[in-house]
């Protein structure tokens, strides 16, 4: 990889200084935090919620931008609103979570589009949508470290509760786990990941860092702890390699990271295919 970058006229020294260093640090942060949360999103089969969240935060960003407030806090606020709405609407047995999530996501995305169409926007909003890791500032990195570190800490503390509620929510409720609260915490953590993603891979691509490394790790590891560790290693590697590769090829870093993660997933999927084939299937047995 490094040899290829150098051959394309991109010096190693340049890579590790100034905006590139910040970009690499930013990619590492999202590469750690997103897979830690994403592991649970994949295991609970909630990837569509990640997609919804990435779109819905647009409303929070737009409202905060129009009000002159911090747009990251606006995005976080949108995530908290979704968590609360999910709890309020979860009592409805006629509709599954998926339908409610889709309705909320599209409504908040539509709200965001309408607000943005009414205000004068600068490049900043475009960076939010598609990300620009090279524009990261040290203060934004510190903010991402703080809220990302808090998210990882919450997952570690709630590890057992998450496992119980994710595997068998009926038994979890029986032994005293507050399953709905655990679900709400997970949604807020999801919002944190989207907020951290805004400046790096962008809100639209955030689901790629959230789901793809964790899904790849799920294919190649048998245990939960190993899955988390492998997802983090993949997330960091893909983040760093994506920034470098994007820079070398002149492609947007966020999209490069997303594509790279998908390629790694595809390779893992093909390589593990024989293992996942049903062994007992013998057509003439």
């Amino acid at each position: 990889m490094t040899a290829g970058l150098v051959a394309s006229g991109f010096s190693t020294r340049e890579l590790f200084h100034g905006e590139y260093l910040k970009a690499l640090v930013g990619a590492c942060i999202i590469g750690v935090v997103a897979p830690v949360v994403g592991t649970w999103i994949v295991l609970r089969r909630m990837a569509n919620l990640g997609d919804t969240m990435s779109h819905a935060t647009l409303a929070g960003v737009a409202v905060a931008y129009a009000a002159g407030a911090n747009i990251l806090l606006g995005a976080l606020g949108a995530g908290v609103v979704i968590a609360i709405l999910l709890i309020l609407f979860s009592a409805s047995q006629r509709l599954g979570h998926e339908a409610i999530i889709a309705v909320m996501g599209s409504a908040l995305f539509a709200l965001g589009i309408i607000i943005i169409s009414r205000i004068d926007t600068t490049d900043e909003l475009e960076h939010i949508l598609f990300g620009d890791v090279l524009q990261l500032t040290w203060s934004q990195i510190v903010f991402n470290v703080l809220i990302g570190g808090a998210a990882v800490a919450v997952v570690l503390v709630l590890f057992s509760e998450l496992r119980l509620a994710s595997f068998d929510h009926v038994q979890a409720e029986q032994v005293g786990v507050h399953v709905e609260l655990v679900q709400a915490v997970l949604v807020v953590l999801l919002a944190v990941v989207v907020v951290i993603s805004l400046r790096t891979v962008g809100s639209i691509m955030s689901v790629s860092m959230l789901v793809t490394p964790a899904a790849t790790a799920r294919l190649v590891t048998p245990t939960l702890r190993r899955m988390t560790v492998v997802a983090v290693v993949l997330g960091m590697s893909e983040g760093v390699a994506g920034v470098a590769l994007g820079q070398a090829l002149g492609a947007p870093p966020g999209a490069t990271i997303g594509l790279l993660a998908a390629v790694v997933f595809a390779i893992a999927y093909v390589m593990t295919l024989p293992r996942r084939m049903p062994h007992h299937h013998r057509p003439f047995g």
Partner: protein
Amino acid sequence: MKCLSRRTGYPPNLTSILRIDLILDIVPNMPVRAAVLPSLLEVIRLGVEYDGITVLDEISFAVGRGELIGVIGPNGAGKSTLFKAICGLVNHSGEVEVNGVHCHSRTDRMDIAYIPQRSSNDITFPITVGELVLAGRRRFHRWYERPAAHDRDEALCMLELVNLPGMQDRSLNQLSSGQLQRAYVARALAQNASVLMLDESLSGVDEPSTTELFEVFNRLVENGSTLLIATHDLALARRRFPRCLAINRRLLGDGPPDVVLSIDVLDRTFGSAAPA
């Protein structure tokens, strides 16, 4: 085995039951043993409605310690709903009492363990057998506490009790159907539950595994646990259960299999689709 009580030779959660038995054995031929001890579980006029449709209608019965009960009824009769209502997992009318104490919330019912249908959990979930059984110990901890060494010992002990020694590091999808059910039973025992409700756990389990499961069930019953097992296999119910409950929205029969599996009760339970 280090996890068994030195005095009784049984797991710690079963020693109190044995103590009661010992006390009762001191007074020979005590005729009113069942009357002295309150029912372990009493269900009083329990009813469940979904969207205005009555799924369970005023079901009442009582069970004592050490009973093995088959709950029979056709698909959609309300067997699973009955179990969930007893555990407080669905809203219901009527009352549930455990050890003579009226249950107001789910936490009052932690002595009851519900083992769901095999298909309701994803067995490819990355969880080991040991971690599954350890999940039963959660009721003894706060949300931020980790299981202690004695919880792990207890979990290993329960795995031995259900004939799964040394299987704690296996993934769930490496187990056979019968082994998986026994792992769930071990989790319920680790929860210190005295009433175990198994929902269609025997469906799809082959005969040797069923025999092995019932060896475990009978051992648990001898140790004072009570098991309610939902099944629609009437031949199995006739062979294996000393007491059966026939349910189809209402309780239509309660007693030994000879009575409950009579043509009259089966007709009322299964209607025209009554199995031969």
